[in-house]
């Protein structure tokens, strides 16, 4: 069965079995992947999976079914069973399909489908993985023998139909290349612990890149990014402890952009919890240097969509402008609960309220070059890698990082591990510089960012 047929049948079946409204999202994903090690293909895999997310609404109650390859009888049984469960849930006036005026599919060509990538043979996928592996070894002979690489090609056919008559579909592709390596570095001074023999330090590095087209992923660049991490930790040392300015390289600053987007998401805004630290639209949420944008219609963007998971048309949304919160990231449920309109960021979840997610998120580039930002740091930390997930306990944000100690505006030496902490509430108001080096290379991007101070505690 084609995706549209499945979606239409699921909606009509739901209506026949008592749903007042129904909406079916069907995604067929064909994936080919290869992993290589030491010049040989270790794993080559392929899958072809059809996944249905069906939302049904009745008496202001919502319920969700997710299923892979269901038959009609499966669906009938599940819908009936779910009806019994959902009768016990509370009515909520915010449940329901997206508003008709918001529904729609983007009309132009967003350049997210590459026929060549969709048709890529598994043999070519394996060759691409081997190319990435050899690129690492070619760029740095120390890596010979301890490199692995993966290449993944995905083609999706996405269809959404609802009981109001909306039924649209689109196709998209993704290619991802990743490389990993481990080397023994000869070092003058070892950090907290020596992982190898005396005078050496084992260092691991990894990098990956994702694009919508085959030509969009570059093995050489991914290999170079991997190698850069290897050399950067050579001769790591312990840094001072205390309050210092912190500069985040773009690859880690993107995590802060992601965190900001969560803080201005509908679920957080409507929860009334202490997580909602950005205030209300129109209020100063963070440093005036920050403008945060979600662009769902970026041509060729990794997160670009023709419509979101409830059929709302995509758009470019400025979430924070010059530090002022201007818009929440919303789906229809949270838009209604906050008396606003959906921003087209619905994400299907088992919870019938659905979640929200950014599409292509970025912090707008600033005026300072990364060199000039670093030059202003008398003593501080330049963060190039996050070593843990960001964790909030009680009122603080804490993050384990690796990077460089900065002395007199220059990178003095690498630091293999340190903990950074700051009170969460004022964290984003402490950003004092934004770089002009925004890289347009992922679903979440940021230029270099600098915080006026965080507490640094080195490992060891």
């Amino acid at each position, binding site marked *: 069965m084609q995706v549209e047929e499945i979606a239409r049948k699921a909606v009509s079946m739901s209506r026949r079995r008592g749903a007042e409204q129904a909406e079916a999202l069907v995604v067929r994903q064909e994936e080919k992947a290869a992993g290589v090690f030491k010049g040989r293909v270790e794993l080559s895999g392929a899958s072809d999976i059809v996944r249905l997310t069906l939302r049904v609404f009745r008496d202001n109650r919502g319920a969700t079914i997710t299923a892979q390859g269901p038959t009609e009888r499966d669906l009938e049984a599940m819908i009936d069973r779910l009806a019994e469960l959902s009768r016990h849930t509370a009515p909520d006036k915010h449940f329901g399909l997206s508003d008709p005026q918001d529904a729609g599919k983007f009309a132009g060509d967003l350049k997210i489908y590459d026929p060549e990538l969709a048709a890529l043979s598994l043999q070519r996928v394996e060759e691409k993985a081997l190319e990435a592996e050899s690129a690492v070894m070619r760029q740095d002979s120390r890596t010979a023998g301890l490199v692995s690489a993966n290449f993944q090609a995905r083609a999706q056919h996405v269809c959404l139909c609802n009981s109001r008559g909306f039924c649209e579909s689109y196709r998209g592709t993704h290619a991802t290349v990743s490389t990993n390596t481990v080397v023994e570095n000869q070092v003058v001074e070892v950090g907290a612990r020596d992982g190898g023999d005396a005078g050496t330090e084992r260092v*691991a590095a990894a990098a990956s890149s994702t694009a919508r087209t085959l030509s969009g992923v570059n093995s050489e660049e991914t290999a170079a990014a991997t190698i850069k991490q290897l050399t950067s930790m050579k001769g790591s040392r312990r840094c001072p402890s205390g309050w210092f300015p912190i500069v985040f390289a773009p690859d880690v600053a993107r995590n802060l952009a992601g965190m900001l987007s969560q803080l201005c998401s509908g679920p957080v805004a409507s929860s009334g919890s202490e997580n909602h630290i950005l205030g209300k639209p129109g209020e100063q949420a963070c440093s005036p240097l920050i403008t945060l944008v979600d662009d769902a219609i970026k041509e060729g963007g990794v997160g670009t969509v023709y419509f979101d998971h409830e059929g709302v048309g995509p758009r470019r949304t400025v979430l924070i402008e010059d530090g002022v919160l201007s818009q929440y990231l919303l789906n229809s449920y949270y838009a209604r609960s906050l008396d606003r309109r959906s921003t087209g960021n619905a994400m299907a979840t088992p919870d019938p309220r659905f979640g929200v997610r950014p599409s292509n998120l970025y912090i707008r580039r600033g005026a300072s070059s990364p060199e000039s930002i670093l030059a202003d740091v008398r003593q501080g930390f330049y963060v190039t890698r996050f070593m843990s997930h960001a964790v909030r306990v*009680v009122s603080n944000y804490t993050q384990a990082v690796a990077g460089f100690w900065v002395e007199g505006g220059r990178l003095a030496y690498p630091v293999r591990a340190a903990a950074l902490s700051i009170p969460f509430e004022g964290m984003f108001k402490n950003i004092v510089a934004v770089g002009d080096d925004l890289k347009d290379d992922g679903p979440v991007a940021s230029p270099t960012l600098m915080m006026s101070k965080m507490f640094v505690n080195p490992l060891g």
Partner: protein
Amino acid sequence: MSNTLIDRRRFLQAGLGAGAGLALWELYRLGMGDKFARAGMSSRAFKDIGLDEDRLGRLVALALERGGDYADVFLESSMSSAVGYDGERFTGAGMELIGGVAIRVVAGDNTVLRATGDMSWESLTKLAREVASAARAGASGSASVPRLRPLASPNLYAVSTPAFDEPVAAKLDYLKRLAAAAKAADPSVRDAQVNYRDTLRLLGVATSTGVVAYDTCPVLKVGVAVRVAKEGSKQVGSASFSGGGHYGFEYFREHSPELLASRAFEIARSQLDAVEAPSGELPVVLGPAYSGVLLHEAVGHGLEADFNVKGYSYYSGRIGQQVASPLCTIYDDGRRPSLNGSINFDDEGVASSSIPLIERGRLVGYMHSRETAARMKANPTGNGRRQGFAFPPLPRMTNTYLQAGDSDPADIIRSVKRGVYARAFAGGSVNITTGDFTFVPTEAYLIEDGRMTAPLANVLLMGNGPDIMNRISMVGYDMEISDNLWECGKNGQMIPVTVGTPTVRIDALTVGGTLRL
């Protein structure tokens, strides 16, 4: 919800005509109502959609028709129902049904895997032939397929009352009581949210080693999250606890709502009065049970054989070497009844086992899948696990724990003049190559003059796994397996695991992240 069983004949007609999902659905009802049928429920489900042992053997043979060392067929059909309770109302009712098949051939170091959600015979024979064509069998051998024989494995999931068939009202009543118990725990509790999910996984594996194994795996998860705040203070705390495992509804009879609520509340409450933590290298005492997650991350992952095949792990090539304090003996034990990480057999048809990884500080073994075992000329250990049918099996932990020592836990705390006691953790991460790890305790206390005093805020523990294992100077006799549900992520695959440890003293560990504005 009705418990009435459907007529067997009517079921067969429906099931044969409808495919895997319906067979699962109805068989569950049929099988769970009949203790005799329950043992064979999974095999019957797959047979009823045309995937009997003969056909599974034919698929394995087809996959190997162009050669190869090993092949297997993995079948999965799982169904879940879920609901949430926000303290005032039930929200988010949902159901999930997942089914599919993966066929794999291993030839030398090369593995070819194909997965599909289409469980029809035509689709699967086509898939098996594709796998055979893609495999780099060549000179790498050509395993023949012996007659499939059932795998002898224990039943670690002794479910007496299946959660799925309990009346909805009974489940919801428990959730209400759980939220009420959390709110009643203390006036500081601002809100309590509860979530519930029951799952039944039907699994089948047929291998070219002649094994066929079926499993019916129930999973129950009930989580509670509490938020606490002090009147007139900005200080807040929050914590969550997820209980369950391979249980039926009897879990609720054996675990009172008050007990589950107290697990989350105690952690959150400790944060309310927390003071800033000291900084620097200090003795750290890890409390029993939950602290096992540190062991899991800092040591366990480095002992998974795929990292060692490639030489990526700190522990690569160190079998037989002293890698930890002689007080340390670490096991991975997939055979503990009902635990979240327990498995009757792994996803490659190898019976689960209890294997020593480190004995008295000496590295004695890695956790293996069939593939890594073959490459390292070792025996599979029953650790080949996958998130679902579409994922390749990897060496993964099950229930990993540090064996009890002989110290009195109170003596361990008394031995520390100034240090940190950590009991619960938000999570952590580890660099497999160097062994460096970071952990954030969500419940930690200052130890002063051998006594636990103030709860601590904003503690980050940083160290090196192999290093701290050599700094363990006392191990308590109070080994406890965590009753929290844990999920472990690796290569994009999440699987259920369990951790455990007795009270442990680490002589020096970096305590960091402290700040005061």
